[in-house]
């Protein structure tokens, strides 16, 4: 396997893909949003329970490639317990990682996604669940689609 491809399919990603964390609908959710990537057919629903400004619980459901499933799974582990502002910042960091390949400043599993930047067509796969989560947080419930923002 080429260096690029093994960067894309890192162990962290394969692990989250095989054993997704926080998958399914949480019954106590008070926010949710749907995201889709119309070109691929990938789908992602994010459910969360917001406690004040803090994400008390979060889960996802959906279908898609290993990158999108692992990204959604990892995202739930990263966002749990964060405030809205912290979540927005984390997404900014994640976005930079997947578009530039830059490693995160502090050691973090997000770094597993640095290999995505060499596969521009897959950036959408990695960011889909994040878009849905941010929409759910912003509470506008609008469906997220990777077609209207360029990543």
């Amino acid at each position, binding site marked *: *396997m*080429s260096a690029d*491809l093994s960067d*894309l399919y890192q162990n962290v990603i394969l692990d989250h893909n095989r054993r997704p964390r926080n998958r399914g609908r949480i019954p106590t959710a008070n926010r949710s949003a749907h995201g889709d990537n119309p070109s691929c*057919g*990938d789908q992602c629903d994010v459910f969360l329970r917001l406690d004040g400004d803090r994400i008390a619980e979060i889960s996802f459901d959906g279908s*898609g490639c*290993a990158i999108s*499933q692992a990204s959604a799974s990892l995202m739930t582990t990263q966002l749990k317990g964060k405030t809205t502002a912290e979540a927005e910042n984390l997404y900014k960091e994640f976005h930079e990682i997947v578009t530039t390949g830059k490693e995160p400043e502090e050691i973090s599993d997000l770094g597993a996604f640095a290999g995505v930047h060499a596969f521009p067509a897959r950036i959408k796969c990695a960011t889909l669940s994040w878009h849905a989560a941010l929409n759910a947080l912003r509470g506008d419930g609008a469906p997220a689609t990777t077609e209207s923002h360029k990543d």
Partner: protein
Amino acid sequence: MPSPWDNIRDQFPILDQKVNGHPLVYLDNAATTQKPLAVTRALDRFYANDNANVHRGLHALSMRSTDGYEGARARVQAFVNAEAPEEIIFTRGTTESINLVAASWGSANLRKGDVVLLTEMEHHSNLVPWQMAAQRTGATVRYVPVTGDQGLLDLGALDKLLTPEVKLFAFTHVSNTLGTINPAADLCARARKLGIVTVVDAAQSIGHMPLDVRAIGCDFLAFSGHKMASVTGIGVLYGRRALLDAMPPWQGGGGMISSVDFSGSRWKPSPERFEAGTPNFADAIALGASCDFLDLLGREQIRLHDGGLAKEARDRLAELPGIRIIGPDGERGGLVSFAFEGVHAHDVVTFADEDGIALRGGHHCNQPLMKKLGLTSTVRASFYVYNERREIDALVASMARTIKFFAG
């Protein structure tokens, strides 16, 4: 005697390249085929010698252009065995051809209570235009069911669905996802008995097998040049002349009116009525060259070649663990779709690309069918005249490697 098949890959210089260090294995032909030198050179020659706007031109280049363009129409007419060149309308492709019928014939003929009958295996391009026409006119869309993974039309259900409210029946000749070859002549005969207008989506058949609109007995037939060894930007709507002449124009503009004043216009007959503005005459001429190229190879031989490779690929892939193969066990068009338990199609395609193999993964513009099959996507390998057996070896090896990786 040398056969045009002998050095066929020399006609396709694009195939002679490495992708990720491996020789390119192009198996995405159902999305678009590659173009032989015979076609791209015809295009170059036209631009280097004869280019001028067609019609209304009395100078030498314009007359040559017009002859070339109308010659291409006559060539396509012969290729599909239409009765008259006026039955051949040049469009951008299958999608535009179907939109033309849905907009023009649809607006003139569909009413509230009417039914447009489709099948569950239609490409979005033969589905969405009818949903839109139905919405505009108050008609309803119904679907002939597809029977499970074998992907055949339920012909028993068809006869029940061919009720008096059905005004039009549109179906694909060959499914771009299943590979199913529908019995087009039989379907048209059943519809015609009831006076139902038929539309055949020939996008996946035109370049791969003999095709005769009179033998099929359809009223309309649509296809794209880019899927039959021709260039992008050109396609065809065949329509029976009696129907075309009764249809209102769709787009307005230069070339399609017989007179205009500030208060209104009169239309020319077909095909001009449906070709508003400067047509894509250069690419139409290239399409004529593609017809020559395919006839030289022999369309029956192409059918055997492409279908044979697809069948062989199917049989060999079927031995892989965890694979689910979609489409008929029997005769199929030149493609095979499949899915692996626990590995998403996009990951498969990305791994194949590492091996230089071009596949398509996704819903193939066939979302409703995917839902019905309980899939979100499949991997598709599709074959054309330049593909070879050894490329099936490469495909199977790559698939084996991928499932092994994901099985971990």
